[in-house]
């Protein structure tokens, strides 16, 4: 089941299935390590529920829900 990162709950683990953004946002997301097959964990959200912070490749990345919309993930059942 694919869904966007925006709809992932805190604490969830997931695998990136696609990055649908093009142009600058897409390039930026990819160079930060968001490529298909990457394992991520949703750490939490900022006090006003946006941006979201995720853990991947042993570091922490934060992005807005608007950007998270471009990232499709598949939840990993623990």
């Amino acid at each position, binding site marked *: 089941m694919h869904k966007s990162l925006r709809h992932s709950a805190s604490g969830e683990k997931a695998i990136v299935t696609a990055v649908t953004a093009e142009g600058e946002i897409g390039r*930026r997301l990819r160079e930060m390590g968001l490529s298909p097959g990457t394992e991520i964990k949703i750490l939490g959200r900022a006090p006003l529920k*946006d941006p979201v*912070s995720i853990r991947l490749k042993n570091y922490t990345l934060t992005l807005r829900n608007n950007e998270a919309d471009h990232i499709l993930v598949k939840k990993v059942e623990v």
Partner: protein
Amino acid sequence: MGAGIQWQLKEGSTATIALAGNPNSGKTTLFNVITGSRQHVGNYPGITVERKEGTVNINGTRVTFIDLPGTYSLSAYSEEELVARNFLTNEKPDIVVDIVDATMLERHLYLAIQFFELGIPVVLALNMMDDARKQGLRIDTKKLAKVLNCPVVETVARSGQGKKELIETAVKHALEKNQQWTPLNISYGTELDLVLDELTEIIHSNHHLTDRYPARWIALKYLENDTEIIRHGKINDKISTQLEELVSRTKEHCIKTLNIPPEAIIADYRYGLINSILKDNIVTQEKSRQERIDISAKIDTVFVHRFFGPILMIAVLYSMFQVTFSLGEIPMSWLENFFGWISATATSIIPEGLLQSLIVSGIIDGVGGVMGFVPLIAIMFLMISFLEDSGYMARVAYMLDRVLRIFGLHGYSAMPFIISGGIAGGCAVPGVMATRTLRSPKEKLATLLTAPFMPCGAKLPVFLLLIAAFFTDYKAQIMFSITLFAWVMALLVAKLIRSTVIKGESTPFIMELPPYRLPTIRGVFIHTWERTWQYIKKAGTVILAVSILLWAAMTFPSLPEQQTSQFEIERQSALRTIGNETDRQKALVEINNKEGQTALRYSLAGKIGSTLEPISQLAGFDWRTNIALVGGFAAKEVIVSTFGTAYSLGDVDPEAADTLSSRIASDPSWNKFTALAMIVFVLLYAPCVVTVVAMAKESSWRWAIFATTFNTILGFTMAVSIYQIGTKLIL
């Protein structure tokens, strides 16, 4: 190493080494360790925008180190990336030392791969090896070097470990390579490879841009839709059209068959390559520590928590004020006494007259007024540096992004605001310059136009002076309120600007939260010293010059002969008629005061101040305040020093040991509301000249002039409202 080095060079030869790497890889720390240079280290992505160099003599070779801005990639996405890439391709350094964080090898190698593709000689510095060991990571450095086909050196930048080996390896490798670039050709799948070959062939046979870049690299950039290279390519219309057509056909095909653009495929292949490299038993993790909870993530469960995060943030900022003021008070009073003593000594040594007046009223009081705040500013900078280097500032940006977005700004706007004085004590000049990290011109403009509202280090003395005079029991509270008020004004004005003159969508927010690190004492002190020194230097140069100029404007033209003789007659008559000794002294002081005031009013500055008085009186500002405020446009520090000069010129009682603040407090033209109106006006009115120049550089003169006028009008309106409402309704 050392004595047995084979590559000893002749005296006088030179080499250039560029330090590159992701933000927060410890690049600047390493640069400081190597060159001993005084340079700013921030834990906030993209803080080093400028190019920094340092030259070191190594075994007779003059090696120039260049600290490139931290970048995640070599695309032309941000100004930093462009700066880094242009440096490499235009100036062709002998070698690039790519500093990678050993704990995040996978992501950091993404940049390394791009250096390999460019072909420039690279030495990899595996930095933060201490952290890697703590996390139980084992890295087979020899194997990594073999697979990457470049030297790899383990380092710990914070302690300088591995520094010597790194430099020696880099110089040696630079000599071996001897400026020879050997681009690495990566396979991007059969389809893209075919297109790449075709593009390369066209580029190669036409020498299209090949004087600067390798042919296949140019082809790759065309496929990646690199705006900078495509723009450059336009110099040859025919070829660029041919290339662009081929690229757009390929793109269509990729999207139709794979549903992703070529640039995404390229990125995927790069990560694929990195994964295959790292899978080869190069990085292993000890089982026992695999599940070790990441300390930074653990801290963040509290620090960026929905409730505790913002509370803690306010608590941190508030306690910064408390600490600064309670700690800064002591050395401040020392300095105040010290300058008082110098002033008294100078008065007794130098004979009365213009020279004494210039030195005492112009220079000592003027510069002393500014220097007195050095301890306070140093402590403030110390704490800001600590927050920056520890990684907390990035959390502040993360937490504030949603709020800032409401006002048409960006999480990255937090940094320029904070540097400008958002936690009181910054400076709008670097603040305005820090807006470069903002990608969208609209958000950048809104940030740089409103950042000068923040209570910068130069405005602080004015506030402190007035607080000491009128609100002495509520020092920290008032300072905190001023800061909050500055934020509110900056945000509201930003919103106003973003919904009128510069409307538009917001730009993406994609930011790394660096791990918390205990800042190195050395780094924090270098940083603090750098900023404090800048302040002292400003006091010694710009402010000294402005002080002398203002003193001259306040002294000349001097009172005409007949008026001075009139005062002399008054003095003589007082001496004759008043019998009681104390009464006589009092009368003399009064006459001297009157003469000083009359002379000041008669001077050029006094005339300007008086001309403005009918208008400024609406806000309760008298002509002396006007002189200070006009001077403050040159540099905000001048406000206090001009007060110092204006009040000491007006009051020549040699027995008056009281400080400037008590003189203002006892002056009948001042009350609490004048003070508040003044605080608000100083906070908001025209930025200082240096800031205006910086603003013009970052945007345009039109915007800089707009801000100067708009801010002054806004500040004056607010000041008038406060004064009028306060005096009419409350007093």
